[in-house]
């Protein structure tokens, strides 16, 4: 029994030795080379990791930029936001127009800046009135930054008081008479822009007839049912809304008079802004536009005006004092003679 065990052990030992021999014969790489290969492998892995990490890091900015462009381009989001901004300016800023062709947009990481110039017609010429910068974070605008180049700048926060256009039934603040004196002291060889309030509501065409052909009505403030108390149903102050009365021949202006009258365009714009009233109110620098109340009122009662921005030669504007339709007046901008 013991002898058998001993034999088995020998056989086993010989197998082991044979296998070790085989293993050593099959390994042509010695230990030094093996260490070198492992070192090289580690080095290659490190280089690969560094390069791929670098590639991924370099992809971040292009991918974010592309995603931002996709966000603003898909569904025309950027164009929609630009439309809201420009249309809001037309209906909330008296006698202000803009060159939509010149509007510039700049898309950053999920934010967009838009910039455009605004113009005022004083006499027969358009003057640059300032620049608007609006920053959007995703689709929410910040309050616009405005660089106004006017002698009498536009109010920072829009209200009835700041534009001095009052509804016939609204209380007239004292001290407005000095404005007529101011007009009298201006030289005859100048042209000007005045904000007038009417003694009664009337149609825009009727107002034009009342004022005659020697002056031009640029923009009319429309009665929307809130102008009498000057606040909306929540008590927030409202600002005038209205529309340009003259055809704007600028190519991209909505008031180009090609398919619709300016009145129809005005109603369309209000309907359009009603869907994004929060954005529009931010751009209008108004606490509220109250379009939910104003649009149904306009649809029910039609468009009647209570105030207007009128431009013309100063001597002709002075004559407006005699006009019974005019209740109050505020002088806006004055420029050298350009009435041809």
């Amino acid at each position, binding site marked *: 029994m013991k002898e058998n065990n001993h034999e088995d052990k020998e056989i086993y030992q010989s197998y082991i030795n044979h296998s070790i021999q085989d293993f050593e014969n099959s390994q042509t790489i010695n230990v030094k080379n093996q260490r070198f290969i492992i070192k090289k492998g580690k080095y290659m892995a490190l280089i690969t990791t560094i*390069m791929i990490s*670098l590639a991924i890091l*370099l992809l971040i*900015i292009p991918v974010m930029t592309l995603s931002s462009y996709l966000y603003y381009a898909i569904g025309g989001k950027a164009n929609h936001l630009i439309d809201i901004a420009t249309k809001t300016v037309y209906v909330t800023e008296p006698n202000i127009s803009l060159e939509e062709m010149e509007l510039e*947009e700049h898309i950053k990481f999920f934010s967009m800046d838009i910039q455009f110039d605004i113009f005022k017609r004083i006499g027969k010429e358009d003057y640059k009135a300032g620049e608007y910068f609006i920053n959007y974070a995703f689709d929410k605008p910040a309050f616009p930054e405005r660089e106004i180049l006017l002698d009498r700048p536009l109010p920072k926060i829009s209200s009835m008081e700041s534009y001095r256009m009052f509804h016939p039934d609204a209380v007239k603040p004292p001290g407005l008479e000095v404005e007529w004196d101011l007009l009298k002291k201006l030289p005859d060889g100048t042209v000007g822009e005045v904000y007038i309030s009417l003694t009664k509501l009337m149609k825009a065409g009727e107002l034009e007839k009342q004022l005659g052909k020697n002056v031009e009505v640029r923009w009319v403030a429309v009665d929307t049912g809130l102008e009498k108390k000057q606040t909306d149903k929540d008590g927030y102050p409202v600002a005038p809304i209205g529309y340009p009365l003259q055809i704007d021949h600028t190519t991209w202006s909505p008031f180009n008079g090609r398919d619709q009258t300016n009145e129809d365009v005005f109603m369309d714009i209000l309907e359009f802004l009603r869907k994004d009233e929060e954005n529009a109110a931010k751009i209008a620098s108004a606490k509220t536009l109250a379009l939910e109340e104003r649009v149904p009122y306009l649809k029910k009662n039609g468009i009647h005006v209570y105030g207007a921005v009128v431009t013309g030669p100063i001597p002709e504007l002075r004559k407006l004092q005699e006009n019974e339709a005019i209740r109050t007046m505020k002088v806006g901008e004055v420029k050298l003679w350009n009435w041809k």
Partner: protein
Amino acid sequence: MELEVKSKKKLYQRKSIPTVTGLLSFIIAIIALSGLNIALIMDYDEFPDFFLIKLPLAGLILGAIGLFTQNRSRLFSIWGIFLCLFIFIFTFMMFGLAWSINPKP
């Protein structure tokens, strides 16, 4: 019963060493991407066609050659081709998207 250890020398060599063309393709793609990043960060008005067209095109060709090289790692070739294609798609899409936003002449 016999223990046998196969030689893995050849196999090891094939997997570890990348193709030269693939590596070049990857490096070119990294340079092009860096150029693109700089152009985006610095907000250049001029179109950097060297980084957006010429370099990625060279990278794409080298990557394609690297992909068909035998007995070498194709990892960098694949990455090179992916990055170069990304730059092309990025350029193409940015043109289209920028044109669709505020499309006034």
